[in-house]
C-alpha cells in the first residue's frame, strides 16, 4: 500500500516535469520552425529574383531594340499593337503592324489567321524571329487579354470613356 502511494507521487512528479519539458520543447520547436521558414522564404525570393529575366515569357520592344537577338533565333515579342499601324498587305493574308511598349516600337509581319482578341490597342505575344531590316517575322500570334473587363454594351465607347464609366461604377 505504502509502496504504491510512493509510486503514485513519483509518477506525478515525473508528469509535472514532462509538462514543463513539453512547454520548453514547444518554444524550441516554434523558434526553430520560424527560423527555418524565414530562411526558406529568403531563398525562394532570391531564386525568384535571379530568375526575373529568364522566367519572363517574352521580350518587350525596348529589350529587343537594346539587345537585338541574332537573326534566326526563335524569340517571343510582347507588347501592345500600335493604334493605326495594322495593315493587310496586297495578298490578303499577310498583315503588318507595330508592337510598342511606350518606349520603343518594333514592326511585325505575320501570315495566317489571327486570334479573335487581336485588335489595335490590345496586347499581343508574337512568336518568331528578327528578319532583315529590323522587321520581326512572326510564325504565330497569341492575343493577350489585359486585366480590364468591360461589358459589351460599352464596346463602342473609346477606352477612356469606358474606363471613366468603370471608375464610376466600381469606385
Amino acid at each position: 500500500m505504502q509502496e504504491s502511494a510512493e509510486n503514485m507521487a513519483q509518477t506525478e512528479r515525473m508528469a509535472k516535469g514532462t509538462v514543463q519539458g513539453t512547454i520548453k520543447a514547444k518554444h524550441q520547436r516554434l523558434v526553430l520552425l520560424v527560423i527555418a521558414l524565414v530562411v526558406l522564404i529568403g531563398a525562394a525570393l532570391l531564386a525568384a529574383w535571379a530568375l526575373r529575366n529568364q522566367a519572363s515569357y517574352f521580350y518587350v520592344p525596348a529589350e529587343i531594340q537594346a539587345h537585338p537577338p541574332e537573326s534566326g533565333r526563335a524569340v517571343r515579342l510582347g507588347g501592345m499593337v500600335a493604334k493605326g499601324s495594322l495593315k493587310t498587305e496586297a495578298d490578303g493574308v499577310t498583315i503588318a503592324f507595330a508592337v510598342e511598349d511606350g518606349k520603343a516600337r518594333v514592326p511585325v509581319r505575320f501570315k495566317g489567321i489571327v486570334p479573335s482578341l487581336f485588335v489595335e490597342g490590345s496586347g499581343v505575344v508574337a512568336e518568331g524571329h528578327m528578319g532583315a531590316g529590323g522587321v520581326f517575322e512572326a510564325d504565330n500570334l497569341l492575343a493577350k487579354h489585359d486585366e480590364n473587363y468591360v461589358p459589351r454594351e460599352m464596346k463602342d465607347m473609346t477606352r477612356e470613356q469606358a474606363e471613366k464609366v468603370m471608375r464610376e461604377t466600381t469606385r
Partner: protein
Amino acid sequence: MHGFANPARFLRIARWLMPLCMGAGFVVAFGALGWGLFFGPAERLQGETVRIVYLHVPAAWLGMAGWMGIAAASFMELVWRHPLAGIAARACAVPGAVFTAVCLITGSLWGRPAWGTWWVWDGRLTSMLVLLFLYFGWMALSQASEASDGGRNRAPAIFGLVGAVNIPIIHYSVIWWNSQHQAPSITVGKSAMAGAFLWPLLLAMLGFTLLFAGCVLARMRAILANQQAEARLRRKALGAAY
C-alpha cells in the same frame, strides 16, 4: 484554440457547422453561377467566353487556399502537436487538388478562344501546374507516412510548409515576369473589372469557399470516425488475445 483540441468538442461543432456550410455554399455558389452565366453581360473583347471566369477564379483561389490550409495545419502540427492538425491537413488536400485541376482545365478552355492557344509555359500557368503536382506528391507522402509511422505526420507537415513557397510565386508570377496571363483584375480596394462581372464573381467566390469549408469539415469527421473505428477494432483484437 486548444479548446478545439478535443476531438469530441470539435465533432459537436462540426456536426451542425458542416451542413450549414454545405447548404449555404450550394445556394450561394449556384445562385452566383446562374446570375453570371444567364443574366450577366458578355465582355467587349472576350464575348461570351468571359463567363468561364465565374468558375475559374474561385477555383484558382481555393486551389491556393487549400495549400495555405495544409501549411497552417502543418505549422500547428510541428509546433504544438495539435491532435486535429494532421487530420485538417489531410482533409484539405483532395478538395484543394480538385479545385486546382478545375482552375487549369477552365483556364485552358478559355485560353483557346481568347489567346489562340490551349496552353503556354509562362510563369502563372507553370506555377499552377506545379501546385497540382505538389498536391499529388503530398497526398502520396501523407498516405505513406500514415502507414509507416503511425500517423505522426512529420514528413507531410514539413513538405506542406516547404511547398507553401509556391503560393506567393503563383500570385506574383504575373507581376514579376512578363507573362501570357493577365495581371490580377481585383486587388484590395480596387477593381479593373466592371461591377456587372465583379459582383457575381465575388458571390461565386464566397459560395465555393463555403462549399470548400463544408467539404473539409466532412472529411475531417470521416477521418476521425475512421480512426475511432480502427482503435475500437484494435482494442477488441487485444481483448481477444488475452
